[in-house]
């Protein structure tokens, strides 16, 4: 029980410490993403070469979702999400304003 209490305290402190941090994902300027990533053409290898690793989720289907953060000022970020199909090609992208 004591250990659980300590874990809870650590989690709460971690939450406070990261409250103002950038959301997970490599930070890349929106213009670079728009210019570089083309659905139906860009490959996973090209994404890695251009922007390095970022936060991603891989699914049993072989699809992957990768997310980048584009600074928009005032400590805010737009999300750029990329869907990669099992063959390693970007099939969809989307941007979410902060």
């Amino acid at each position, binding site marked *: 029980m004591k250990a659980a209490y300590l874990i809870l305290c650590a989690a709460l402190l971690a939450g406070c410490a990261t409250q103002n941090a950038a959301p997970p994902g490599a930070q890349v300027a929106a213009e670079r993403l728009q210019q570089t990533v083309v659905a139906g053409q860009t490959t996973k290898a090209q994404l890695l070469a251009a922007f390095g690793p970022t936060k991603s989720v891989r699914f*049993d289907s072989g*699809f992957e979702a990768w*997310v980048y953060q584009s600074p928009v000022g005032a400590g805010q970020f737009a999300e750029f999400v990329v*869907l990669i199909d099992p063959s390693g090609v970007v099939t969809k992208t*989307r941007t979410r304003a902060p």
Partner: protein
Amino acid sequence: MSGLLMATAASLPAHAAGQNTVTVKSTRDPVDKSYRKMIRGMERFERERAFAPNASLRFQLLPRLPNVDMRGITLRVAGDTVSVPVPVDENNFFVLPRNPQALQEDAAVLASRKTASMTWRARIETPGVPAGMRRLGDLRLECRVGKEAGLVSNSSPLFGWISDALDSPEGVCTSPDGNYLFFAERPIFAVTLRAGERVETLPFSMLYAGGEQTPDMLPFCDCQVLLDRTYYVPLWDASWPDDTLVEFTYMVDAMIDMPAGVAP
């Protein structure tokens, strides 16, 4: 906890426990669903219909493990003396019948699959919601009914510990940290809320169980094989009315049925 104590007691020699030997022919799988709890979920649906005044309630069976065959599942309510078959449709939806005898006998709801191979959810749908969308009030009520009915099948000790502190319907369904998982019909790429002129796409952190599930953690989440269909919605955020529509953009667009011999 009582099950653990019973199991511990059962592992002791009879003389050590100072009791006579008792032969237990069977034990109820703790993952099986309690009929009483599911009925309590149905009662909560009736009490809180204001979230979804015209909606109907069903329950749904969903895959929990890879390779589980979800076709032809049969379901029954099983008590000490009563056994009531429950029809399951081709999409694994069912309506739970009310049976006073089963309630009195504290029956279990048993499916013809290993219980750890599936998870369960309430499904509440208001008529007239456009195809490919859900209604936020329906989801708010699904969370309350689902938690009341004890449907979520997360199995990690950590999840269990969290459950102790947070697992009430109020804790889960009214808190930003409640994290009640919903499953879309197909793998999703985006989820967008629409309420009148207000339109907002949910952040990445509200898809795919937050995107935080490592391969080691995933088997403990009942999203294990549904990760690409998994999303949270801001149930707690009263600035989104119950009539808010939840719209899905799927990973793969729907195939258009074409006449035979016609290339798409």
